Every structure is written in C-alpha cells, then in structure tokens.
C-alpha cells in the first residue's frame, strides 16, 4: 500500500489567482470597487506622472533651492549648517551602531533612512552644485564614519548621551557664530530661514517644551491648590486657542510685555516663545497621561523604601511615565514640525513661507501660466511628508517595542 500521491492544490486556491479572488473580487460589489478604484488610481498616477514630467515647470524651484533650504544664510558660510547636518548624521550613525537597547532597531531605521536620503542632495551637489559639492559629500560620509566608528569601538556608546548633549551648544555655535568676523562670524537670525529654520523651530520647540511640560504636568497633579489651579488654567487656556493666535499674540504682546519697540525683539524669539509654551501645554497633558498610567503601588513602594518625594518622582515614577508616553511625545513632535509652518505670522521665513510666497513672487516675472503654486505645494508636501512620515513610523515602532497600547 503506497501513500496517496501528492496532488496539485485545486486551481485558484494558491498564488496570485487566489489572492486576487480573495482581495480584489471577493464579491460583486468588491469587484466593482476594485475595477473603479483601480482605474481611478491608474488614471491619477498617469496624470501625476504626465504633469510632473511634461507640464510642470520645475525650473523656478530648482533655481531657488538654496532659498528654500537656508534662505539668506551667507553662501560662503554654508559649511556651518551642513556641518550640523554632518554632526547629526555622525551621531546618528554612532547611536545606530552602539545602541544595544530594545529601541536599537528603531534608531537604526531612522539612521538608515536619514543617511540614505542625505545621498540624494549629495549626488545632486556632486553634479550640479559645485559650491557645496564637497560639503554635502563630507556630511554624508560623516554619517557613514559614525556608523563604522561605532562598530569598531562600541564603548563610544556610553558617552553618547554626552555627545548628543554637546551637539546642542555646538549647533548653536555653528549656526549663530561667535565673533564679528572670521569663519565663525555671527549670522543674525534675520538671515535664517527655509528648511533650516523649520528644523530649528521644531527641535528647539520640542526640547524646550519638555521640561516646562513635565513641570506643568507635575504641578497639575500637585496637592497644593495654588500650584494646581495655576497649572490647570495655564494648560487649558493655552490649549484652548489655536497656535496661530498665540503666534499673533506673541508678535504683538511680547514687545509690549518687555516695554520695547516692536522691532527690538527678534522674530525668532517671538516665534520660539509662542511655540514652546504652546507645545509645553500639550506636552503637559501627554506627561500627565503617563503619570496616571503608573500604578500607585510604584510610588508607595518607593516611599516605603525610604526614598524622598523628589527621588520617588525622578527615579521611580517619571521614568516609567515618560517611557509610556514616548510614542505620544513623538506624535507631538510630528505635530509641532507641521505647525512650524505658521510662523509666517511673526514674520519668519520658514520653509513654508518661502514656498508659499517668496518663490512665487520672485518668479512672477517669468509669466508661467498659472504660476508655480502647484509645483511648490507638491514639493513642500514631499519634504514635510518624508520627515513626518519617518517620525510616525518610529512612533509606531516605539509603541510596539514598549508594549504601549497592548492589553
């Protein structure tokens, strides 16, 4: 008695046919949807390609790339912002190579997408932008160098927090400068703009709002009524009105509050004040959520072990709370990154403002039918989308890694 010979699976249960039958033509209505939606998507992709390749006029955008990314930052000093790019890529590479923690794979993912994308401008620069050719190459290579260095000498991993911390003053030093002349001459913030400014606003906003937000969250949970109600009022009023009104108020009120002329205060400072406090109020609510998620037993156990109130909070409760809300904080960073597009209200020329007004105005004389609005909004969408989407992927991975949201 031999075994029954193996037979082919029935037709249409494996492979593409089965997949299509299940996913595309599961029922009559599903089939209709597949065909109609599929046809619509094909048409959309075709028209977008057709527009991108044939009818769009990309030249104004191409000629104004520097404006879009660094605005009026002196061209001969471009090594400084690009140095910051190199520094960040270097540290990312170092972190990616040495991180041994559960979040290591997330950092590696971020590193590879950032380092990978940095090769796009590098290759373009090599062929088309002779003045920044070697700078871009250097920045991209710094990323690789960081990775290799981290692999070769893993003990760098321990000093990484210090290196990241030191990168903040280094960035300020590089972008703003120190002396009146020389290679590190000061570059006033009025010359800052473009995507560089967008990143500065988002980074400073999220970093500066963090301690304020934590303080507000702790204040809101305080048992002392004066502090508690002050924090509640601050958080709710700030969250009650949209960011654009706070930016408007910052541009009007900050000079009044300091009793100086309207021009005396740097628009960057006004924008940062509004963004930081606005972000802090939202941060406070995120952190509060985390604090509520920490079981009471944790702080009670800590007190029973003899830890003081501060120790309990800083060593036991806050670390757990912040870990729980890390994905939410990344989500907030995405929101802030997108919201920086509103700083035109205080008179800053960020990436969005340059794409919205400066370039269309400058190229108005070219008499391109319909202007370059479509081109500009498509390009801005691409850039914003890349960074925000990368962050949202990281946020989702964090959520999974940290087991947040799982029951």
């Amino acid at each position, binding site marked *: 008695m031999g075994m029954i010979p193996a037979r082919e699976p029935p037709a249409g249960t494996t492979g593409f046919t089965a997949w299509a039958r299940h996913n595309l033509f599961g029922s009559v209505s599903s089939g209709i*949807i597949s065909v109609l939606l599929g046809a619509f*998507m094909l048409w959309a992709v075709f028209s977008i390609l057709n527009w991108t390749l044939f009818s769009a006029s990309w030249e104004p955008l191409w000629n104004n790339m520097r404006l879009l990314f660094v605005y009026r930052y002196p061209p001969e000093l471009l090594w400084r912002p690009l140095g910051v790019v190199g520094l960040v890529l270097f540290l990312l590479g170092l972190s990616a190579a040495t991180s041994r923690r559960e979040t290591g794979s997330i950092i590696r993912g971020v590193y590879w997408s950032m380092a990978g994308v940095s090769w796009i401008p590098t290759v373009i620069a090599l062929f088309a932008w002779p003045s920044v050719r070697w700078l871009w190459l250097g920045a991209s290579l710094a990323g690789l160098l960081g990775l290799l260095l981290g692999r070769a000498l893993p003990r760098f991993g321990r000093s990484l927090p210090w290196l990241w911390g030191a990168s903040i003053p280094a960035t300020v030093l590089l972008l703003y400068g120190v002396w009146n002349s020389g290679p590190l001459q000061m570059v006033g913030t009025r010359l800052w703009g473009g995507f560089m400014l967008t990143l500065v606003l988002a980074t400073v906003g999220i970093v500066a709002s963090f301690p304020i937000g934590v303080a507000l969250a702790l204040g809101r949970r305080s048992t002392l009524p*004066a502090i508690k109600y002050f924090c509640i009022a601050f958080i709710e009023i700030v969250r009650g009105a949209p960011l654009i009104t706070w930016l408007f108020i910052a541009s*009007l009120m900050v000079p009044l509050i300091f009793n100086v002329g309207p021009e005396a205060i740097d628009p960057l400072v006004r924008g940062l004040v509004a963004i930081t406090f606005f972000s802090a109020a939202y941060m406070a609510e995120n952190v509060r959520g985390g604090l509520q998620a920490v079981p009471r037993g944790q702080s009670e156990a800590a007190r029973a072990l003899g830890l003081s109130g501060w120790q309990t909070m800083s060593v036991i409760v806050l670390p757990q709370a912040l870990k729980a809300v890390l994905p939410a904080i990344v989500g907030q960073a995405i929101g802030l990154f*997108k*919201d920086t597009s509103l700083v035109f209200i205080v008179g800053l020329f960020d990436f969005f403002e340059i794409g919205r007004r400066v370039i269309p105005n400058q190229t108005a004389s070219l008499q391109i039918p319909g202007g370059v609005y479509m081109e500009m909004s498509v390009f801005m969408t691409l850039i914003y989308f890349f960074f925000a989407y990368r962050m949202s992927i990281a946020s989702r991975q964090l959520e999974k890694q940290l087991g947040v949201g799982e029951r």
Partner: protein
Amino acid sequence: MSESPTDTPARIPFWRNVKTIGIFFQLVFAAVMVALALVLVNNVVEALNRTNIPANFSFLPARAGVPIAETPIPYTPNDPYWRALLIGLLNTLRVAVIGVVLATILGVVVGVMRLSTNWVARQVATGYVELIRNTPLAVQIIFWFTAVLTVVPPLSSNPITLPGGMLVSNIGIAIPWLFPGYSFGQWLPWLIAAIVIGIGTWLLFRRRIAMSDRPARRAWPLALALFILIGGGSYLLIHSRTSMPENLALDFLVDRGRGSIFIDHDASGSMAGGEQPVPYAAVIMRIEEATLNATTSNVFESRRLNPSSFRFPFIRAGEVEDAQVSFAADEDAERFSVHFTAWPSRGIIYEDRNGNGEFDEGEDLNPETGRGFSGVSMVITVYNFERYVVADRDGQVRLPRFESASEAEAEAAPAAGGPSTGLFGLNLDATADTGAELDFTYELQHTGPLVWSTPVVSVSNYDGGIRFSTSYLAMLLALVFYTAAFMAEIVRGGVQAVARGQTEAAKALGLNASQTFSMIVFPQALRIILPPMISQYLNLTKNSSLAPLAAYGELFAISVIVANQTGASVPVTLMLIAAYVVISLIFALILNIVNARIALVER
C-alpha cells in the same frame, strides 16, 4: 500593649510639617507669580501709554470700514467693528459646521475602507491617511487655494456650468438654491405644524410599534407621508391662492444694469425712502436688441495660455434668440475672422491666412510677435434677450450692462408705463422708463412660498443661488480632507476594538456582513469612537483659524485686520482668546455629556 517612650513619635517641628511647607511653598509661588504679573502688566501699561495704543473696548462701536467678501448676515463697511467681528465668528461657524458634517462622512468612509477586505480600497485609504496626516494643514490650504485655483477657469472667461445649473469659476461656486419668497410667512405656520406632526407621529408610532407584536415595522413612512401631505398641501394651496403683493414694482436702470424690487406705496415707479425692498421676488426681464463690448486678449485658463480670445461671459446661449459678434473697427473686420469655442460667449479671432474659411492651428497667433492678437474691440449684438432673475437678500436685481444697438432703434423705444395689475392679479406687465435707449420690458413673476434661484453671472460676481467663494471652498476642502484622515484612524481603531466574538456571534445568528456591521459592530464601536471624534470636531473648528492663508474672513483673520487697523491689539487678542476658549469649553461640555451618556449605556 505597652507603650515605650521611643514609640511615640516626637512632635515634628512646624518647619518640617508637610502642611506648613505646602502652605509656605504656595505662598512663595503665589507671591512670585503676582510679582511677575505686576511687573509685566506694569510694562504693558507703560508701553501702551508710550505708544498711544488704545487699551479699552471703545473702538467696538466705531465704523469698521473693513470690506468682507462673505457675510452670512447683512453687512457693509459702514457697520461697526463689533459687527465685523461677529461676522468673523459666524464665518468660523459656517466653515466649521459644514466641515464637521462632511469630515465625519469622509472619515467614516475612509475608516471603513481601511478595514475593507478589498485590497485596492485598503491601499487607497491607507495612502490617503498617511499622506494627509503627515503634511501640514497650511500646505494643504494653499494647495487648494492657489494650486487648484489656477486650474479653474476665471469668471471673466465663462464659468463651467455643471448639470443642474451649478457654476464653477475662480471666484468660487454657485449652487441653485431655494429661498423664502414673499408668501413664505403665510406658509411658515403650516411648515412648523407639518414638522411637529411628523415628528410627533414618528415618536408615537415608534413606541406603539415597539410594544406591538410586529416590532420590525417602521414608523417613519407614515410620519414622512403626513409631513409631505401637510407641508406640500399647504404649499400648493398658498401658491395658488395668494397673489403677488399689491404695488410690487421694479425700479431698474437698464443702462446701469441694476435695480430693486420693492413695494411701491406711492405708485411712483421708483423706490423712495421708506419703501421696503422685497427679497427673493422673481422677474423676467427682456431686452429686444442690445450690444455688449469686449476686447480680445491672451488669457490664462487652466494653466494654459489661450491667445486671441474674446469672452462674453454674461450671456448664455439659452437666453438669446440670436446673437451676432462683429468687430468694432472696419479694418479689424477685414483682417480677422471669428471662431466660436462656445457660442455666443466664448471664441477666438484668427487671420484666415490660407483662405479656407476655417480656423487652423497657428492662425490665432501674430507671426511677427509670436503672441495672440490682443486689444481688438469686439461687439456682440443680442436679439430678444430674456432672463429670469430672482432678487437677492436686499431685493436687488442685476443684468449685464447692455448698450443700445443704435441711435435709430433707440428712438423707437416705447414710452413709460406704470405697472398694471393683470387679470386675477397674477401677472404684471410693464415697460419701465429707464432713461436709456433700450427696449426693455419686464414681467414680475408670481412665486410660491419658496423660490428656486439659479445662479447667473451679470457683472463681476455671481447673482442668485447660494454662493461659496474660493476662499471658503479652499478652507472647507482642506479642513475636511485633513480632519477626515484623523477621523478615519479613530473609526478604524474603534471598529477594531470591538471584540471578535461579537462579529462571530452575529455571523452565527445568520446576519449578513452589512447587518453585522451596522447593527452589531458599529453601535459598539461608536462608544469608543465618539469621544475622540468630538476632539476632532474641536480641532477642525480651531484649525479654521488658518484662514488668512486662503483670505477667508473668519474670526482670526478679521481680528488681525481689526487689531492692525485700530491698534487695539490688547483688547482684540483678549477677545480672540476668550472666543476660542469658550468654543473649547463648549466642546468639553459636550464631551462630558457624551461620556456620561456612554457610561450609562455601558452598565
């Protein structure tokens, strides 16, 4: 139990008592805050004194002089500032309310699509959500406002007419709409009665049916039938029984193309002070023969340059018996020929170089300059122009500014005639003394309680119908698409959170897929979905403050204008924040109520 002296805790000195420390700490905190506030307020007061910035609300009753494009309630620049700000608030609500409704529909559709078994639907929905959520709303607003705007044809070169009479152009869209006519007041009690009876019947029968042995029966068909019977019957009755108000008259200057419909108390034929305009009255206006002028130009349309174009956007084919386009100058008439792309309102002129009598590619370009022929004067003569016009909210009616065809025909214009009441008081035929040499007649129309108004173009804006500017549409579209992406995720999460056993049990009971979803899964998901959904409604309302990007005059945009104009930045910002905080509190209140209701249902 023995108590040793070491067991009794030593009395804590008062400076280490937690309570004392707390009070002390609060006092210090309060003192610091008050001191800080005093310093800042003092600074602000000094700065205000130094710069003479008004710091009170006395500017509110002053004349605003702010032109606002879209006004839900009557408004002129002569109205005070508070009214301008009120219009801003109403415009915020106008975009928020419609936006919330549309975003909810789109959000639910996309959320369900993300869970679909259909691969294409799932991918499209995911792509949409990711793209929209990760792009700033500001970019999306200017995409809709500036980028899409350049694809839509300008009003001056003929708007797109969609089936049903909807008009689309670069100033926005206009949709045919029903307005309350002069007999609406008589119908209103019947309408209210119909609604009350309809709802009452529905509630009553729903209870009866629920308690009866046939709970599957529906109560709404009877309620709807009653509503239609009462509402519709009374409508028809009023429509046939009432007549036009006595002395209803039209005061129209045909050479200026404007006039108003009003109650002519003194039978003078012209609107005097104290005579009230009648909104939404209908009139048919006729002109026997008249002309309009235009010059050719090279116009941008839908991102394309259309050379040598002439446009008569105010005239549509159905409104005239005949129309002839000619050249104003004789030498132009010899040189050029006319080619219509849409008779009689759109066409181009060309040089018939090969003499075949037809337009060929390139003949619309001047070979010397490589551009089209612009600045050539054109005249259109229309014969037996007739248009049905519904007056607007202020009783105003408009026509294109026609000119008389010739002196000779102008002399034949009939003399003045006052409005005369026809048999049964239904038709009024009249010839007005317009002062112009145009053969103009009009016929006021009897209308029912509701008047159907189809939009037309007669000057530089739409007339009739309900109109939405490009600014409004850009804001609405951006807000709807943006918020719907977040709502889709909420809906998806909510549906996924419903326990699998519920679906399986429903299937086991023999419910089909749509019944399972609509009767089992969705009602349970709704409890999870509703609270975050309400925060999204609030977000949409707050995000409407990005309106300056689309030049839409809502609360924030108008506040900025008022603050800049009066210099009263402090009071205006206080009002602005108060308004938004109040809106937020209202939403928080709704959220709390909903949460309470949901909690009750769960138990």
